[in-house]
């Protein structure tokens, strides 16, 4: 064995192989490279979301010829929920001048947030990722509307209080949190602990190691032993259907199990069959196809055979979440066109477009989605909005809305987020102060 660094030669060979390849931007189109995971352990949650976004942009192209007359060049980049691949996709998105990067995993968001302001590509992590990135003053390039996990924790407890008949009745109750044993799962713990101290309930955490997602029997036995009154599920992928099923197996009342919004897929509840009836989850948008925008997708995309999704899956919860995300991004692109006066916008313009995002109830109707979701408004300072959510319930075949809008406790969450953002900026020495100017909302 000789020439150790001949391997470098190997690397060089690879370079020679496609160094010449450079991105070719088509005339008059806006590029959007979107991360997906249609393969791997988390594909169960990843596929419906990806289908929703994809179909929405295909619909815009087919119906309106794109946004503002410019076609959206929508492209998927497969990550397998793997950070290394997600970083590749960042580079791919950058090379193709994507106007926004959608990480679809907390790990990918964390790895790419520090690069956003350098590569001038905004990151849109819808209700996941780094909670502190809600603070626009520190993270001008990152957007995570409509609410953070910390807001989710607040909504959880408010909903439980509603069912128990007031916050005062929480005293002495035991609330369990079944969580994926990863940073994503541990995210709500600090807020829940603070709320537990304040309202006098006991918080029990039940971590599920990633390798044991489908093997939860001891966890649910522990829930039975601890006489837990309510169970919150902070899960994703294959962990969710197993949790619902185990709740049924141990006879825990399903209408006292509340998933986070990522534990609210139709495929999370359906495999448990009748056992899943009554299972709850948070959400911030409606399900079903009774919206003009979904009908347009059916007419302009599905009927033309351009959708990857099965027809009966359209209108499911995670599919509609993909559509919701598509609508927010499309609106940001429209704003960017208006603010910059250009037809073909860049990532920098779209960043401004996000900060000007203001979808009122009337605007939701114009977009073809009346009462589809709560109004969303962002600002230069607030990149999240801490908007209201509600609870949906599985009736054995589909999700139904089961509560009114519940507003998270913004006054409590916001200072915590600002502290976290400050801590991030100080621990990351050299984190730049915001230099991006702020547009006045028109």
């Amino acid at each position, binding site marked *: 064995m000789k020439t150790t660094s001949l391997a470098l030669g190997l690397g060089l060979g690879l370079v020679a192989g496609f160094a010449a390849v450079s991105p070719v931007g088509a005339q008059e189109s806006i590029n959007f490279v979107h991360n997906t995971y249609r*393969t791997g352990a988390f*594909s169960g949650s990843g596929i419906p979301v990806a289908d929703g976004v994809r179909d929405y942009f295909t619909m815009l192209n087919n119906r309106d010829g794109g946004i503002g007359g410019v076609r959206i060049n929508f492209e998927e980049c497969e990550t397998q929920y793997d950070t290394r691949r997600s970083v590749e996709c960042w580079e791919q998105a950058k090379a193709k001048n994507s106007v926004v990067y959608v990480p679809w995993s907390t790990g990918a968001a964390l790895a790419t947030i520090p690069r956003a302001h350098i590569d001038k590509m905004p990151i849109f992590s819808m209700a996941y990722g780094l909670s502190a990135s809600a603070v626009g003053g520190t993270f001008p390039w990152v957007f995570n509307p409509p609410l953070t996990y910390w807001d989710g924790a607040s909504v959880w407890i408010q909903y439980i209080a509603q069912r128990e008949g007031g916050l005062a009745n929480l005293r002495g109750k035991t609330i369990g949190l079944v969580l994926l044993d990863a940073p994503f799962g541990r995210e709500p713990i600090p807020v829940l602990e603070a709320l537990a101290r304040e309202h006098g309930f006991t918080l029990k955490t039940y971590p599920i190691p990633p*390798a*044991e997602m*489908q093997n939860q029997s001891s966890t649910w036995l522990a829930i039975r*032993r601890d006489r837990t009154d309510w169970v919150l599920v902070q899960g994703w992928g*294959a962990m969710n259907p197993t949790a619902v099923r185990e709740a049924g*197996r141990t006879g825990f009342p399903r209408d006292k199990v509340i998933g986070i919004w990522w534990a609210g897929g139709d495929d999370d509840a359906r*495999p448990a069959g009748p056992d899943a009836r009554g299972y709850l989850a948070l959400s911030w948008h409606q399900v079903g196809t009774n919206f003009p925008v979904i009908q347009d997708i059916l007419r302009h995309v599905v009927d033309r055979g351009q959708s990857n999704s099965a027809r009966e899956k359209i209108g499911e919860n995670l599919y509609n979440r993909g559509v919701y995300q598509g609508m927010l991004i499309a609106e940001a692109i429209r704003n960017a066109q208006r603010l910059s006066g250009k037809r073909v916008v860049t990532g920098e313009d779209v960043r401004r477009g996000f900060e000007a995002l203001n979808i009122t109830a009337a605007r939701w109707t114009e977009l073809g989605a009346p009462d589809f979701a709560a109004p969303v408004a962002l600002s230069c300072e607030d990149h999240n909005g801490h908007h209201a959510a509600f609870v949906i319930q599985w009736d054995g075949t589909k999700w139904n809305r089961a509560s009114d809008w519940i507003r998270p406790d913004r006054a409590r969450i916001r200072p915590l987020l600002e502290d976290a953002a400050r801590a991030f900026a100080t621990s990351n020495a050299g984190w730049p102060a915001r230099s991006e100017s702020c547009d006045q909302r028109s």
Partner: protein
Amino acid sequence: MTDATLATRKPFLSEGQRNGLIAGGVLALFIAALVVATQTGTITRNDWIYKIFVDPFVSMVDMPDLLVQTVWEGFVAGVLYSLIALGFVLIFKASGVFNFAQGIMVVFAALSLVGFYEFLTLTMGLPPGFVAAIVAMAGALGIMFVLAVAVERIVLRPLVNQPDIIMLMATVGLTYFLIGFGEYIFGGSPKVMITSQLGLPTGSTMLDFAGGRINIQHLDVAAAVIAAVMIGVLGFFFQYTRIGRALRAVADSHKAALSVGISLNQIWVIVWFTAGIVALLTGIMWGARSDVSFALEIIALKALPVLIVGGFTSIPGAIVGGLIIGVGEKLGEFYWGPLLGGGIESWLAYIIALMFLMFRPQGLFGEKIIERI
């Protein structure tokens, strides 16, 4: 007295018995000391010694229904681990290949079953139900047979006589191929196992026990029964049929088997097909517990500590090992897990396995490793 007689004279206690006695004595002394210390108040409820060594046992006695339930859950999990481990052992015994692809074979088999069922009921217009499920089952078995033949032809035959690690690597390549192929054909979205269509029971029974209740899932009982029947059939097959004898001969020595006219290629196909059947059953059982998705592949890793407890070459070892790991990890997670914040199941199985290895490096039932220079 000659040396020979010296060597053959049996000591009063064998070395193993002596070690066992010593360990037992130490344990008894330790327990006695604990009891005395707790009674006299030397150890209070908040001491870590109390929390580790006394508290779990107190709660076991306090709530016997939970103890029984935990052991039952561990037993069921153990049966399923054993099934996965069984697939490994079959192949390792007959061909000396550590089949890394067993996990993906489980997923692949289950996906084929569900995929066939969907195809039959949706495209072919067969009425949904037991008949379609059985036809789908036959189809899935057919696929596993084709896979076994393909593996033997394409992977094993050209790689005869290569070192173990190369064979392992080949099965890793097979794993990658099957992942890509499976996702290409069946898509990545999770599927619901056709549990009731296959005639598997779904309900549960509550038993009153010592002031509490024990919840027994009928599916789990069925899993245990099916596993037992399958192991019985396999045992019979190995012990009393001509092919079984041939299999055992191959496991003993490839060369000797070849020299008495046993076709290695044929045996390998049979063994891989048998592992495929085991994989299909495992897939059905695990799939019925959650859903059929590629995430199930990770579960197959749980077979590895089972294998090192039981030994790579022993079928009873796989079963006993599976039960030890299953019950051990559930008890550990349930009673000791909270001390560490829970979620220790992922590594506890390996620690249990390591403890066994420290005393028997070849596993409980593995063949003794004899090293010669």
